[in-house]
């Protein structure tokens, strides 16, 4: 089923789901998702349009300062709930596999704000995120990435003296012959694109919006 072939009433249902997510109305969103199922609209179309459009709108509102970090967290939660409703009748082999990202602030660094914003933006844009928190050693990050079969490792560092730990993760991946298995994206206050390139990172984001675009470029 294609979006262009839906009736106006069916399209309005998809719009109502998108709008309910954007305003974080949990009940309305779940109700709209159920109505989409009841109306026998292909849930994959709803996932593609309602959820994806909601993610874009929420990202834009965050970008212009209309929404804040807690809103992104709540939108992420709501998208997962709605996604579960929509996906329950889709055969497992037809569910589009979401890309998995392990994210952490590197060892010795307790700063979480930037990492949290990137993590939440990625999650509300449909990535599966394993946020390991702050002060995480290289070996633990790699172990987690292997365990959850991640496609990407995202590393944050706010201190000049913790930047070498970003390089350590990449060096460890090389030593363990795992470098080809994971894309590595780096960021944080003192980190620059030149530094990212110099340590062999695949991607760099100077802020959350750029990190999201970089993740999409590398994984989608």
């Amino acid at each position, binding site marked *: 089923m294609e979006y262009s072939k839906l009736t106006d009433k069916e399209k309005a249902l998809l719009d109502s789901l998108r709008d309910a997510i954007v305003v974080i109305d949990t009940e309305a969103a779940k109700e709209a998702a159920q109505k989409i199922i009841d109306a026998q609209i292909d849930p994959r179309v709803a996932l593609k349009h309602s959820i994806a459009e909601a993610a874009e709108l929420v990202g834009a509102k965050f970008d212009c300062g209309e929404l804040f970090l807690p809103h992104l967290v709540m939108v992420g939660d709501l998208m997962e709930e709605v996604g579960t409703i929509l996906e329950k009748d889709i055969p497992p082999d037809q569910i589009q596999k979401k890309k998995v990202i392990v994210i952490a602030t590197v060892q010795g660094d307790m700063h979480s704000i930037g990492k949290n914003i990137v993590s939440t933006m990625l999650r509300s844009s449909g990535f599966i995120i394993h946020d390991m928190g702050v002060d995480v050693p290289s070996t633990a990050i790699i172990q987690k990435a292997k365990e959850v079969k991640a496609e990407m490792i995202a590393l944050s560092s706010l201190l000049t003296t*913790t930047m*070498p730990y970003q390089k350590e993760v990449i060096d460890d991946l090389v030593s363990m012959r795992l470098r080809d298995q994971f894309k590595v994206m780096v960021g944080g206050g003192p980190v620059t694109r030149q530094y990212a390139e110099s340590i062999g990172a695949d991607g760099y984001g100077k802020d959350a919006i750029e990190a999201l675009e970089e993740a999409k470029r590398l994984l989608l």
Partner: protein
Amino acid sequence: MTRLSFWEILKRSKEGPMVEEKDFDLLIFKKTQELQKKYGIKYEPDKPVDMDGDLADRVYQAGFELFLDLGTYCTTTKRIIKVTAEELRSEIDSCPVEVILGQGTDRVKMTHREVEGNQEAIVIAGIQTAPFSDEEMMFKIYKGCAMGGSVDGIWGGILLKIDGQYDVVAGAPSEIYQYKKTAEILRKAVAAAGRPGMITINNAPTSPATVAMFDETLGLRRSDYMEVTGMSEMKVAYDDLNRTAFALAHGVTIHGTHSSVIGGFSATPEGAAIVSVAGSLQLIAVQKAESFRCGAVESRVKSRATRRNLWAAGTAIQGISRNTRLIVDGSMGDHPGAGPGTKQYLYESATGHVISTVMGAHSTEGTRKFVVGNVCNFGTPLESNWMGEVCKGAVGMTRETASHLVKYLLAKYEAHLTNPPEGETFEELFDQETLKPLPHYQDLYEEVKEELRSQGLKFSS
């Protein structure tokens, strides 16, 4: 009245309710939204300097209530540390109203300051936690900072290499060694400037390296302060509490710092003002601070002098100054978006430090461009001196005059905050032999100083 034992706090960190960090974060948001409505707290962009003491009082009450309701999240134990209202009031009433810092003729008294008060504003400037190319350059720049007559102390920075070739890495042995070396250089630099008893401060990423800097002969002294950090927002880790434990055992004054995040879980400027108060109360109740920085930071804009930031932190400081006898540090404007050698750096710095001083705070968190990355020597003694001149000049200023001045300055730089001028390094701005600014920078400094003098800032010279 007595202060709650630090060991009781540690006990509570192991026995308090266990909560998921994400749930705690969302609670900050939900509760501040409720309190914002309950206390009728409203940010008005055209009033970046709050002149309504009643609003500041409500921000204080909301912050007090928030801290009692939520407590502090310990990221090490994943538990909440809570105190009762009675314990918190006792804690506030038992905090000192003055602390003595520094030694000999360089000794200063840091007291509780009133809003628009005439009490001296203590200024600890210096190029805070920025990287330096080598020991000689670090010595030169800090000596220059210590020679600035308007500052009472200086913050240290970091060296990125040992022997010019081995990386200094946080949490590794190199961090301990190199931070101790920087503390030695700092002490030698202030002595060479003729101010051997001057306050010197530094804070390493980890507690072992921070503790390693304390050395009465060649390092940080008991008469300096130990900075303890409250993680944003309303959190603490055992690594932070290690600093408190050392300071208590060693007899060092404890100075706390915490920032709410506009756009973070505080969300709005109103939420950030409330969380700034709550975070400050955390610093005294949980981390045993005797003075503290009450701050806010933007999640998206890399400057400590945005309009929203100025209002949020300024109103929170005013609320604490009006409702307690605590010793508050503001240091607003400490991290401009613009780089050294630009008018915008001086404008941003002045805006924040004027509000900070007028609202009843000291400014002891040093200064540097918000993001310096790994560019070395990205700061000069002139920005450090500017911070001191502005703070001392703003003592006794009314909020009305401050409001006029701040609006004037915001009009100068606000449109450039997202794309600020990069600035220049020490080598490009200073004569390295005489430690004096090159003529073009000295002229720029004097021009801005005259401009601000004409707008009501009373510089002492």
